């Protein structure tokens, strides 16, 4: 028993402690954060749907770093990385906005040199912005009014509104995929883009709660991702 302790347990303990120290690299610790912005206003999107890609050259590595890197609902992003040189792109056809492109139509990359925590906001040009979104509830009916401001107006690039939607959910994730109630209005039914009103009845929630979360969104024709208003928590 004593020799078991001496010959097996101590060497094992020693070895495991020793290897812990020796084998592991220090984890990445530099934060790269930011948000997609248009002239200082953040752009709200659907969670897990609008991707961005980070690249780092060298190390014999090809392709983007990580996978499934997407923006949060409020348009922000955050990565923990090592210090170094990176390039960031938003792939073509993603997001309710236009990201800069090079002459051959590929997404232009944004060079980022990380040396300590850094905030990099990504300037994009959205097709539309939602302004003055006001959402309120009374008598179990949620009503939203907002203005749809057309940002890209030149005849080649501009796109029409396919529909506008008011989404209500019991959690803070509110979008076409996450909702308990939705009210759509086709783009052709909008009479005054400066004053769009939508309302929807909140269904019964189990277990009951006395508040809901709501956002309005614009679906732009031939653009996959919707643009949303900031999330609002509405007491019922």
């Amino acid at each position, binding site marked *: 028993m004593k020799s078991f302790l001496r010959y097996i347990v101590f060497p094992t303990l020693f070895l495991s402690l020793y290897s812990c120290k020796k084998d592991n690299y220090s984890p990445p610790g530099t934060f790269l954060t930011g948000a997609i912005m248009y002239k200082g206003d953040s752009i709200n999107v659907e969670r897990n*749907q609008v991707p961005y890609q980070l690249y780092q050259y060298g190390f014999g590595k*090809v*392709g*983007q770093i990580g996978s499934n890197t997407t923006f949060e609902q409020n348009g922000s992003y955050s990565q923990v990385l090592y210090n170094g040189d990176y390039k960031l792109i938003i*792939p*073509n*056809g*993603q997001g309710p906005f236009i990201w800069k492109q090079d002459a051959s*139509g590929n997404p232009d990359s944004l060079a980022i040199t990380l040396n300590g925590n850094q905030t990099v906001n990504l300037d994009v040009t959205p097709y539309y912005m939602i302004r003055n979104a006001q959402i309120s509830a009374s008598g179990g009916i949620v009503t939203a009014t907002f203005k749809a401001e057309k940002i890209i107006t030149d005849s080649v690039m501009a796109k029409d509104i396919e529909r506008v939607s008011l989404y209500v959910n019991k959690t803070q994730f509110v979008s*076409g*995929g996450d909702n308990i109630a*939705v009210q759509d209005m086709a783009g052709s039914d909008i009479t005054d883009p400066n004053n769009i009103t939508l309302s929807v009845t909140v269904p019964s929630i189990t277990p009951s709660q006395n508040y809901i979360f709501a956002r309005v969104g614009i679906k732009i024709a*031939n*653009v*996959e991702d919707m643009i949303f208003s900031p999330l609002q928590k509405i007491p019922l």
Partner: protein
Amino acid sequence: MKKIVSIITICLLLFVGWGCKKDNSFLDVQPNTFLTNQQVFSDPNLVLSVLADLYNRQVDFSSLNGGWRTFADFSESFPSENGSSYIVQRTGWGYGEWGLNWFDSYNYIRDLNLFLQRDSASTGLSDQLRKRFYAEGRFLRANFYFEMTKRYGGVPLITKPLTYDYSGKVNDLQVPRATESEMYDFIINEAEAIKNDLPADVSEKSRATKGAALAMEARAALYAGSIAKYGATAPAVSLPGKQVGIDPSKANGYYTIALRAAHEIINGDAGGYKLYTAPTGATPAQLADNFANLFLDKTSPETIFAKDFAKGVTHGFTTNDQPFSFSDEGGDAGRLNPSLNLAEQFEKLDNTYAPFATTDASGNPVFYNNAQDIFADRDARLAGTIILPGGSFKGQTVDIWAGYRLANGTIVTSDEAGHLKPIVPGGPDVQVVGADGPVNGLELRTQTGFYIRKYLDPTVGSGRRGQGSTVAFIRYRYAEVLLNAAEAAFELGDNTTAAMYINQVRARAGLTTPLAPSDITFNRIVHERRVELAFEGLYFYDMKRWRLAHIVWDGTPTTVSDLKTNIGKATQHSTQPWGLWPYKEYDPGNPDNGTWVYKEVLPSLVTGANRFLLGNYYTQIGDDVLAANPKIVKQPNQ
């Protein structure tokens, strides 16, 4: 002395001379561990065995030996296996989904190119045989490029075996992607070039024939035409270099080719193909049996090209998907459950669409005397494709019902199939749920109320793991050729021809009231293909080429009213597989006692809603491939 010298000299000379000769031929022996190209390509049987390997390496989207899961997605069915619930719990697909192994694929293409090179160089084969083998190789290559094009759009089109010269430069080996229309042109031209070297033999099912080449041509041209025409619905799904997307002006040209190729088969130029109609009768049950048998009868004149199976080379589709209660292999059954979304698509016999009547106009349940009454007067393909509650397989009736419904609407059921318990407190113990389900979360039994019937093998022992099933997977069949012709004619503005072809397919299914030319619409075309070709690996590509996928699978959950409205519309959205659960009415003393009541149920394991992104239209080409060949451009929207 003299004598000794001469004897020794002669002996030595003999020896040396003998040895020299012998050594030479001793080293010059035929290897007996491999065959040279010259040997192989002189013997028709050896060429055929090389070809057999090449046939075997073809790929299918859904395949019987590729696992039941290849049939399971897109809300057309529910996967009743707990390890596969992810199919209905995810909210979409990765960009890499449905891809092929790029390196295996190009290895295969290289082997095909080598085969063609060696076959054309062979001198030991008769002219006719050499031509036939050559044409078969080209058919396989074209068909495989078709499989790649459906997934990736344009890919590097390599038609010669590439060789590396060890110079350190690989520029010549890096081939850029062809345009999508070049891919389809290649497939069409190959089919035209080889069709007359292939036999026009209706009894040849598992080797390439003239019919197979023409069927491939018709399908490819139809796909190309619809991508050209409907690409405008989703303009973002294209690349500036046209590796993805086809110019709209080419649509009519492709539709014309599709119609011509289909006509050649219909006219009998490729042999006497026709719809499978065994002379059994025209009752709904007989028509349904006939439809199911077309997939089982290997001599069917409808089958044009199939992946065949035989004793020793079997698959487990029947093992995986047979009804639970009379499974040949206890505990191995019932995985693929067709959904209500699909079942409701089958029309009434008067050519109208209607959901199954579960409630009357005021919302009260409808009572049926027999379990199958709710499915009466429908397209025979419903019962031919799906085992319905009260339906039978291998001569036994499936036991599908979800519980008792009391007069006040409460449900008595159990979470264990076939469980005995009292219906009312103090009553006798009786079975309260069917032995075949449905029970939420109880795997290997139906959870939608339906089992798959298509491809299910009634042969004794076909459901055993050790024995397996030898049912063939049909890649091209005559009914699809008719539907291809109908679609091409419709797109070219010839509704009369379209109606004529579509009516032939429908009449076989018991829909004997013909559609008038004015009834043929895009929705009709889409609908007919969905019900006729369900679970044949074609629905997904149809949704892609019509650019309907992002509309049908839009990520919003499917509600009961979504299910019941817009049936037969191409854009009806279908993101979650629903079920239709039968209940027995328990109301002693009332005439309704013992009748059947139905309810639409979303299986509780279904938590996701499918969302098809624009970036899903064309499968991602891996970063490793892009890095190895910088000339390859990325797919759009990824």
